[in-house]
């Protein structure tokens, strides 16, 4: 893509953002919307600049917790899904409990997590892991079940062992689904980390908590913006790994040539 097309492709999504920010700035500055409801974008930006060191440190803490939680949920979720895919009985017995991880409201079990794991990062990582594990289980399970039947026939024809089927066929075939689940999970891991930080302390969660107490809505917005950015960074990393792994062969990665 040459320079001109690059710019013209960036313009459409930028336009609503610029308009929205201008609108917010005008309505808050003029006093039409009180500043304790919505901060003027200029104040949020000033907050980002003034507190950049504190926000950067907090962001790094939250990111590392979210990443650790994601790694944890990825390994346990994938192993769990592989185990469930092997036996129909096992799947029917245990899958409903996996759904529990999806539906349990993390904000209400976070205090329990503190009692089990103590204050600080262990609780935050646990919270991130709990919130992000279900999409991984669901997608991996789906992917393992989506192997082309003819290929399963082929492997059966040559008396492939269950292990050969799993490693040489089912898991590689499931990779697109696995990455899809990982994408969703990475955004959730950031959310889970911040909720965990409300109760466990540290990171962007505590910045939001403290800013809320002091009615510094501009700081709250600044922290929220950064956490959205963290989510985007994680998803971007997943996309990168996905492109590198699947690039040579999967249709979702190949551009029209």
């Amino acid at each position, binding site marked *: 893509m040459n320079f001109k097309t690059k710019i013209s492709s960036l313009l459409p999504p930028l336009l609503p953002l610029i308009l929205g920010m201008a609108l917010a700035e005008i309505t808050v500055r003029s006093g039409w919307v*009180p*500043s*304790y*409801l919505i901060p003027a974008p200029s104040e949020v930006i000033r907050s980002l600049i003034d507190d950049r060191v504190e926000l950067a440190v907090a962001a790094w803490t939250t990111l590392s917790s979210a990443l650790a939680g994601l790694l944890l949920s990825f390994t346990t979720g994938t192993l769990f899904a592989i185990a469930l895919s092997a036996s129909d009985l096992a799947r029917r017995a245990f899958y409903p409990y996996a759904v529990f991880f999806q539906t349990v409201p993390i904000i209400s079990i976070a*205090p329990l997590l*503190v*009692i089990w794991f103590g*204050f*600080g990062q262990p609780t935050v990582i646990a919270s991130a892991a709990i919130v992000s594990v279900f999409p991984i289980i669901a997608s991996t399970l789906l992917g393992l079940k989506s192997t082309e039947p003819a290929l399963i026939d082929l492997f059966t024809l040559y008396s492939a062992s269950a292990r050969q089927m799993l490693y040489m066929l089912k898991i590689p075939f499931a990779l697109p689904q696995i990455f899809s689940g990982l994408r969703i999970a990475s955004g959730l891991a950031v959310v889970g980390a911040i909720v965990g*930080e*409300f*109760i*466990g*302390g540290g990171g962007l969660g*505590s910045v939001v*908590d*403290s*800013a*809320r*107490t*002091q*009615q510094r809505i501009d700081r709250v917005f600044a922290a929220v913006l950064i956490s959205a950015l963290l989510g985007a960074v994680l998803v971007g990393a997943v996309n990168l790994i996905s492109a590198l792994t699947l690039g040579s062969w999967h249709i979702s990665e190949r551009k029209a040539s």
Partner: protein
Amino acid sequence: MKIILGFVLILLSTVAAWGAQATQLQFALNWKAEPEFGGFYTAKLSGSFQKRNLDVEITEGGAGTPVVQMVANSKVRFGIAAADEVVISQARGADVVALFAVYQINPQGIMVHPERGFKSLGDVFNSPGTLAIQSGSPHALFLQKQFPGYKVTFVPYAGGIATFLTDPNFSQQCFVTSEPLIARRKGKPAQSFLIADAGFNPYGTVVIARRQYVAKNQKQTRDLINTVREGWIEYLRAPEPANNTMVKLNRAMDAVSMKEAAEVQKSFILGAGAPAQELGKMTMERWGTLVNQLYDLKLIKTKPVADKLFQNF
């Protein structure tokens, strides 16, 4: 035919209920029902609100309920807040005023395990362990400033005493009239230190409303505050009826703890022993001190004029 009749009845009663809601006065608490709010419930139970043509509905709150914003936004007419919240909101442009203060002496404190052997707040801050305190709150910042070089680890305060009961190295903020009593009933007696003794003593548990609303509804506000005052005088005399109501609303506290709390908090409410008609009234001097303290803690960038912050009724 019956279906149509039923539908019309439902429609009419909905309209009636909605109409009734429009004249109801919402009174939003910032925590669950406790002796801290006993006088309000007494006023409601005694029917005094109704006698003065006030249809008051008290709603409980919890951790993080943004009562000040709800009042500033006219979502509720009256609410409960901390005095420092009033100052900070005024500095941010939300025009709310304080009308009645339940506590003359602020019962905010730090509770610790007696086994730790702490003799003062300084000991608490300069020893290892964890201290749960609302991060960014004025009393937290005040104490951190007073004890720089603190060794204790600060953790978020989430309400309740669950961790206090299980962790012997855990200390937390509290209302000295409330949580330590519950802890003792649950088998873990606590020692508490009053933050007011360290020099930070804003009014506690104040009734707030929008200034514009008060200006336009002087009689209603006066009637409401006088009823509230009567309710508190009665609650100080006989807390049982209100306690019986509140115990049904708040599972975290039992009847015996409420009785104890109601007793313990008397001195905080009466303060230096003002006459009954003066219950809940506030002074410019106290508000001025608070403004200066919050300014020094860099929580506000401008100093609101003290007499804009409250009105006595």
